[in-house]
């Protein structure tokens, strides 16, 4: 019963995040919304496991958290440097002054 209530509240949180993702005036709203939705995915896998009395997939939920983190870093790096791969020494020198 508790897990069913948690699932319904999680769906409410997902809908709120999706609204911000659709309407988000700035790009940062959308990045934050995707990041929050990734966290909700982790929570969903956990709650879904306990709801069906088979919490065997919690380790997979941890992997989702890792993917979410790396993906957000990649998107923010794209914002900062306008590219994602390795940077030429020239561009790095301009950015960091090293």
């Amino acid at each position, binding site marked *: 019963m508790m897990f069913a209530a948690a699932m319904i509240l999680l769906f409410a949180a997902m809908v709120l995040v999706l609204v911000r993702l659709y309407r988000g005036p700035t790009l940062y709203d959308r990045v934050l919304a995707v990041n929050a939705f990734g966290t909700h995915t982790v929570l969903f896998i956990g709650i879904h496991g306990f709801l069906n009395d088979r919490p065997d997939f919690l380790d997979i939920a941890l992997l989702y958290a890792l993917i979410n983190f790396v*993906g957000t870093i990649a998107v923010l790096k794209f914002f900062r440097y306008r590219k994602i791969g390795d940077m030429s020494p*020239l561009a790095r020198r301009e950015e960091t002054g090293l």
Partner: protein
Amino acid sequence: MNTLIDIVVFTMLVTTALAVVRTHSLFATVMLSGVFSLLSALLFVTLDAVDVAFTEAAVGAGISTVLMLGTLALTARSEKPSSHSPLIPLLVVLVTGAVLVYGTLDMPAFGDALAPAMTHVAPDYIARSPAEIDVPNIVTAILASYRGFDTLGETAVVFTAGMSVLLLISGRRITRAEAEKGATGNAKGTDDAIGDGSDET
């Protein structure tokens, strides 16, 4: 409760797909397709296919998003207005969807123990794998042991594809070395053309 979960997740999936179609900012489209991929991963989790779900999340929400952002760095950031009528693509999509739904009509029900896939070799694997392989996950036992040569062939294909992509991309490294040695004045122009995508492979 599981029916409710399916309905809610499918509703969010359809809404996200409609939002992808209606958004004109390409960056927002990339973010929305990442969430679409996460939502389909949730549906795979509800179907107990956690390995498929994880592949979907890693490829769809992870690598694809990064690759599409790398493409966005090279192209425009907003969608050009379409030059043709949307009716023909809509018709194609509707016909394809109707054919796919028609194809599911004579499929066995979900979890049907008497489905042909469940009665052919599956009981044999279920009976033999605890004694022969002793791995709790029977799918892993089949993939890595009973069909090991098949998996080895798949890995060889993926390895060849990865090597080819690396060879194709590393051809550009020479251009970068030459560009840095030659002209430092137009470094801005060469920066946009190099260094994208090589790390993600």
